[in-house]
């Protein structure tokens, strides 16, 4: 009896202590940590929309051509009809006047032929002039178009290269684990050689951060990613751009968001 009563106070005290502890933990815990969300840099794959306009313009010249062709066909048909008519008239006249007017008819025919010839000549000249004009206009237009297209292409290429470079960087940084000795502000510049399948064939430090472990960690991250689908896609779609800009890429890796 003595034994049992000596336990009452300890039991109450222990339960109170644990209850208090749990209450403090549950209340104090939630207030302390609000998970901080770091804004990840978003990688935007932007494409120039004005390309649409140039495509339409490109389609314009064939339209002009068609119209021209149609007009020429019209002309020719007219000409043919006229010639037919003439010939029929000549035949009729020939029938009527027969031999006695043969000379006259011949003269007439000659004159007609000459006339026709002159007219044909004139028409031809006219046509040639028109064609030349058209051509000149067209070539000027095309030149301008080409120039613009080149400009657009260059801009597009630059953008594609940028976005691919960004994607590469992001891919590497997502697996990059920085060593504990890294400090904010350290910069490592790396030269990466790609092959058209998107695989890295060589990665070299161009400019070290001064911290060998950090430099090594960057190379390890690159090796870990190994294949970059973005590069492969670019190489498939635009091999020239790949050769010119991406085959050898320089990337900067900066230690920025360490808590110290």
């Amino acid at each position, binding site marked *: 009896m003595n034994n049992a009563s*000596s336990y009452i*106070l300890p*039991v109450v005290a*222990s339960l109170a202590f*644990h209850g208090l502890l749990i209450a403090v*933990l549950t209340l104090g*815990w*939630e207030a302390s940590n609000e*998970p901080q969300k770091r804004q990840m840099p978003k990688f935007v794959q932007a494409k120039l929309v004005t390309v649409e306009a140039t495509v339409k313009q490109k389609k314009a010249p064939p339209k002009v051509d068609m119209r021209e062709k149609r007009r020429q066909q019209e002309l020719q048909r007219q000409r043919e009809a006229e010639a037919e008519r003439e010939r029929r008239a000549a035949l009729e006249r020939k029938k009527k006047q027969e031999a006695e007017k043969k000379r006259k008819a011949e003269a007439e025919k000659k004159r007609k032929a000459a006339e026709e010839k002159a007219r044909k000549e004139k028409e031809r000249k006219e046509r040639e002039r028109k064609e030349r004009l058209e051509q000149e206009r067209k070539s000027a237009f095309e030149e301008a178009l080409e120039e613009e297209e080149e400009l657009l292409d260059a801009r597009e290429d630059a953008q594609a290269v940028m976005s691919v470079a960004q994607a590469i960087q992001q891919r590497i940084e997502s697996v990059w684990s920085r060593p504990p000795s890294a400090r904010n502000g350290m910069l490592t510049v790396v030269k990466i050689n790609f092959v058209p399948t998107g695989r890295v064939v060589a990665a070299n430090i161009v400019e070290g951060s001064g911290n060998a472990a950090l430099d090594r960690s960057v190379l390890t991250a690159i090796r870990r990613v190994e294949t970059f689908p973005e590069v492969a896609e670019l190489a498939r779609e635009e091999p020239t751009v790949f050769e010119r800009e991406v085959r050898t890429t320089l990337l900067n890796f900066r230690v920025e968001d360490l808590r110290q």
Partner: protein
Amino acid sequence: MNAGEQLSLWGLIQNASLLVQLVMLLLLLASVISWVMIIQRGLYLTRAKKGLTNFERRFWSGADLNQLFREGNVRAEKGKVDGVESLFRAGFTEFTRLRQQGRSSPEAVMEGTERAMRVAMSREQEKVEMNLPFLASVGSVSPYIGLFGTVWGIMNSFRGLATMHQATIATVAPGISEALVATAMGLFAAIPAVMAYNRYSAKAEWLLSSYETFAEEFSSILHRKVHSS
């Protein structure tokens, strides 16, 4: 706020697997019981120490042994005699009983008295060292139980990770965090238990050696009394 809610202590415990929850429950129980023991032992040992000093002061103040014995009579009937006083009472009762029989030799009287005190001593030892083994086993085992819960939780968390496409720290962190709660609880139960065990076993040893010393001294007084008369 959803993530914050999920990371609260209750959320972590609720999301844990059944085994880990069982481990946590076990550890909480161990902690509660060990605290009961700690407080009970602490109170008992403090009281025993106080009783020892009080009784020794009265004993050595030169009071009459019969008088001392009679003072304790009332408490003895209620069963509230503890520690060194019960040693004294056992020895003195046996001594007077043997003396009143009159036929026994002084050696036989002393022997009987010492035997009675040894019995009382072992009973006291039992009382003083009660529950200490429990504290010792909580102190040594509960970290392992907690570790087991943690290892199990982390195992599950990594197994879940294997099916993920993109493994980020955010996919494993909650699992590991909830698993680590088990270790924390194990340590929480173990640390006070170990400290209390070390402290109380030292105290108990000191008390028992004091009892032994007192028994020796008391029997030497009785010895003198037997041979003088």
